[in-house]
Structure formats: structure tokens, C-alpha cells
């Protein structure tokens, strides 16, 4: 498993065209949102925050992690297309190692992504109200959620076996992101978006990431975020393993 994780990490560093957009696009959206919507903090129902940048950091992190999921999906689909995946399957290693190896690398990359946005935020004036402990919680929730999003990408790749198809399907994840409380508080969303957001795990992940940044740590929000991230990761890992085993039965 660790050999495969090491390979995935090395390849990520050699494929900047996959890695850079994960950081650049959410940064641009963060800049645009912070500049264009900063007065929304004055709206009734908006929580008291140090600045709109602080509030939007969680959205940028979640978006970046979702893009990380796309990268995982495309990387796995490309391996299936070029036959390298068959080499792994023909090796005497547990099938689960193939999934866990890739997801272990995704966990490490997600840590880098979260750290990048925390540092970016601090550079441009954001403050982490939860202190170092809060920052560590953001890293933990983010890395787990990123692993779960990687699991979504991997499941899609194992099912579709086609990189273009994975790339085509994944934008729906961003629709789901906008139907969550990642960008604006749930209280400011109108029906049916508020209803969707209430059941959307991305809302709880984004709120869990946001809480230690905008306020002293609230155990409830953090635990909900952690639970949602763990839930997505567990479900998507199981789905990936299931689809991988299905590959052996199908053409």
C-alpha cells in the first residue's frame, strides 16, 4: 500500500497540470468572492466574523478538495485506459491496497491543499480564531474530506473506466457544492436550496472547516464536520472497493 501511495504522490508532483488548478482556481474564486460579496457579512442572519475572507476560506478549501477528487478520478481512469491498472491487479497484493494506497496519497495531498489556503488566508489578513488547535482541526477535517472526495473520483473512474467521462461527470459535484452552506450561511439560502443544503454532507464539512477559523472551537460543529467527512470517506472507500471487485467479474 505504501509503495502505491508513494508512487501516487510522486506522480502528482510530476503532473503540475493536475495539481496547480486545485490551488489556482479556488484562489481566484476566493479573491472574487471576497472582493464582490464582502458586504454580505452585514446581512441579518450572517454570523459575526472577523472578515468575509475568513468566512470564505472554508469554501475555497472545500472547492479545492473537490478538484482534488477530480484529479484522483482522472488519474485512475487514465491508468485503466493505458492498462497500468491491470498490472496492479495482476500483482499479488490485496485489492484493497490499490484503493487504500491511492487514498493515502490523496490524504497527504489534501493536507497540503488545506495548509496552502490557511497560509494564503493568514497572508491576506484572515485570523484563525480557534488558534493552533483550531488550525489542526481544519487540517484534519480537510484531509479526511479530501480523501472522501478522492474516493468519489476513484469510484467514478472504476465504474466509467474513461477519463473523459469522469471529467464530464464531476462538475455535478460543484453543483452540489453550491447547494450547500459552503459559500453562504444556511439561514440565507432560499427554498429549495436551504432544504438541499440541510441534507448535504458538504454543508457539514464546510461548516466544520469554517468553525475553528471564524470562532472559538464549537465541538458540535467540528464533530458534525468530522462525522460528515468520515462518512463520505467510508462510503466512497467501500464503493471503490466494491467497483474494483466488480471489474474482475465484468468485461
Amino acid at each position, binding site marked *: 500500500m505504501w509503495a502505491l501511495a508513494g508512487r501516487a504522490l*510522486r506522480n502528482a508532483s*510530476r*503532473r503540475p497540470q493536475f495539481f496547480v488548478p486545485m490551488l489556482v482556481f479556488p484562489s481566484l474564486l476566493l479573491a472574487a468572492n471576497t472582493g464582490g460579496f464582502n458586504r454580505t457579512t452585514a446581512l441579518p442572519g450572517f454570523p459575526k466574523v472577523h472578515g468575509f475572507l475568513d468566512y470564505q476560506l472554508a469554501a475555497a478549501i472545500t472547492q479545492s478538495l473537490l478538484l482534488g477528487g477530480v484529479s484522483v478520478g482522472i488519474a485512475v481512469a487514465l491508468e485503466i485506459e493505458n*492498462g*497500468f491498472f491491470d*498490472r496492479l491487479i495482476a500483482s499479488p497484493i490485496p485489492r484493497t491496497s490499490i484503493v487504500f494506497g491511492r487514498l493515502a496519497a490523496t490524504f497527504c495531498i489534501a493536507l497540503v491543499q488545506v495548509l496552502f489556503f490557511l497560509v494564503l488566508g493568514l497572508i491576506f489578513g484572515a485570523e484563525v480564531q480557534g488558534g493552533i488547535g483550531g488550525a489542526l482541526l481544519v487540517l484534519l477535517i480537510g484531509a479526511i474530506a479530501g480523501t472522501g472526495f478522492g474516493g468519489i473520483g476513484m469510484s467514478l473512474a472504476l465504474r466509467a473506466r474513461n477519463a473523459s467521462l469522469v471529467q464530464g461527470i464531476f462538475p455535478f459535484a460543484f453543483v452540489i457544492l453550491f447547494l450547500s452552506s459552503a459559500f453562504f450561511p444556511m439561514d440565507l439560502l432560499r427554498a429549495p436550496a436551504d432544504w438541499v443544503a440541510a441534507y448535504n454532507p458538504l454543508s457539514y464539512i464546510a461548516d466544520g472547516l469554517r468553525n475553528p477559523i471564524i470562532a472559538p472551537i464549537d465541538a458540535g460543529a467540528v464533530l458534525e464536520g468530522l462525522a460528515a467527512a468520515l462518512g463520505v470517506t467510508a462510503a466512497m472507500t467501500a464503493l471503490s472497493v466494491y467497483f474494483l471487485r466488480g471489474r474482475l467479474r465484468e468485461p
Partner: protein
Amino acid sequence: MPAIEAVELEREFKGGVKAVDGVDLAIDAGEVYGFLGPNGAGKTTTVRMLVTLLRPTGGSARVAGYDVASQPDAVRRRIGVALQEAALDPLMTGTELIELQAKLHGIPPEKVKRRGEELIERVGLVEARDRRVGTYSGGMRRRLDLAMALIHEPGVLFLDEPTTGLDPVSRMTLWDEVRRLKNEGTTVFLTTQYLEEADQLADRVGIISDGRLVAEGTPAVLKGQVGRPHLEIALADGGDRERAVEVLASFGAPRPPAEGFELAVTVAEGATEIAGIVRALDDAHMTVASLELVEPTLDDVFVEKTGRHLEGAGETDDAGGEPAGSP
């Protein structure tokens, strides 16, 4: 105990398409078995079942003594696999790929480097070892693929169309390596659509068509089943054809000559009879302008068994096949 054994092996895909339909195999340890057939005949599907990448939907198969369906991990530990198209990661270097493969096969870390270096040297990739595989030529990729398949010193090696698309020099290099593996006692299951490749390398050949094994045996026996070799002869200045026929009658049955030749005679012993025939014609004051020994080919066998030619049959010369002798 055969190194590879299949009994009524079947694979049916969605829609009821049977890619492999009741294939029986019994391949001895140390044997090079050529699995010959056109595209879509069922070669790759058979290999994918034997290397545990695909579950059979009928019948059974054992490789290195283990059942491919119920003991896939035991099979994987004992086989080397080089699949079609040399599936390599273009972002990794040759050394990195070999070392990864070694780790996947559980080779102890202290042996990984040494074994990797040995194989890199064996396949002639020392200078390219630290370059990314994306920069390798087709022949280099195939050689690296072969090295990776050999990292754990498998007793059974599966090579799925290892030379398809390669230039003649790269093809010869791989042929030499297969011969070397045979000398070392490795069982090699080689799928190919090149007749010359099967003829040159395989101890026995199995011909598959539409998912069924239609012929099996040594190349010589298979070719012997469809006819004996014959000699096409052209005489200088036209010569006395009737007199020549009389002379040749003592060597074998006459047959219609091909275009550009005046005479043709079946020669049961093949090339060893050429000298006697030329001498007899010379004694009868006839000069041979040219002659050509025509051997039955595996394509003839394929035509005999299936009623159609094998794809790639016309590529045998490109594959390094030598034309039949002429004086």
C-alpha cells in the same frame, strides 16, 4: 503436472457473446507455447483468465498448480505478466517502475536494488534507466515490460502479443530473450498473430479461432498435416521440360508449378533433397536457373482448419523470416 492447464475454459460476456468457448490446454513446465489467432479470436481473453484478471464463466484453469478462480493470489505470486501494449506509467523512470514491481511482489528491500539492476542490464536499458518511460521507444517499453514481468523470477511467463508493432530489430531482441528464458526453464505462454513468431519460438502451437482451439501441436506436425514441402524449379533457356519431369519423377510426385517456374515436385525430406535434384538435372544436361523450396506454413494450417487466412500472415517477412532458399 502441467504448468498451465485449462479444461473447457469459457468466458461469456454480456449479451451472450462467448469470447472463449471450451478451450482445453495442457502446457508442460519449461515449454514455450504459442497461442496463435487473429484479432478477436479469444487470445487475450484466455490470457486474462489465466492471469486472474478475468473470472472464467465456465470450465476451470490451473496455473503453476493453483486454480485461477479460487486461488488467484497463489497464481499471481508465481506468474510474470507482460500484457498487450506494454502498460507502463509514463511519468515514472525505468528504475522506479522495476522497483515498484519488486515491492508489489514482496521482494525484500535489500534485494530490490540488486535484482532491478540485473534486469535493467539484461534487457539493455542501463543508459535509459533514469529517464521517464514516456520518452522510451516502443521496443524499450516492451523490454522494460519484460524485465518487470521477470522481477520475481516467475516459473510461468505470459507474454501477450509482445512484438506487435515493433520494428524487426526490436522483435529479434525479444525473440532472443524468449529463447533465453526457455533455456532457463521458464514456461512461456506467448500469444501472437505473427506466424513466424510462433514458428520460430514455440515448442507447440495452439490455434484459436472464434473462441475455440482448432488445432494444436508442434509447428512441424501441424504443417505436416496440411502437406509436404515442394520445390519450384525454373530451367535455364526453358530447358527440356518433358525430360526434366522424367528426371524428377524419382524424387517425388509432380505438382503444378507456380508462376515463373517450369516444374514443381514434392520433396518429402525438404531441403536435404535439393542437392540431389540439382545434380540429377545437371547429369541430364539441364541447367537450373532458379529454384525455391516452399514449406507449408502455419497460415496453411490456419486456412485448412478455419477456411480463412490469419491476419498478419503477410507480415512474416517483416518479422525476420528468411525467404526459401535459392541457389
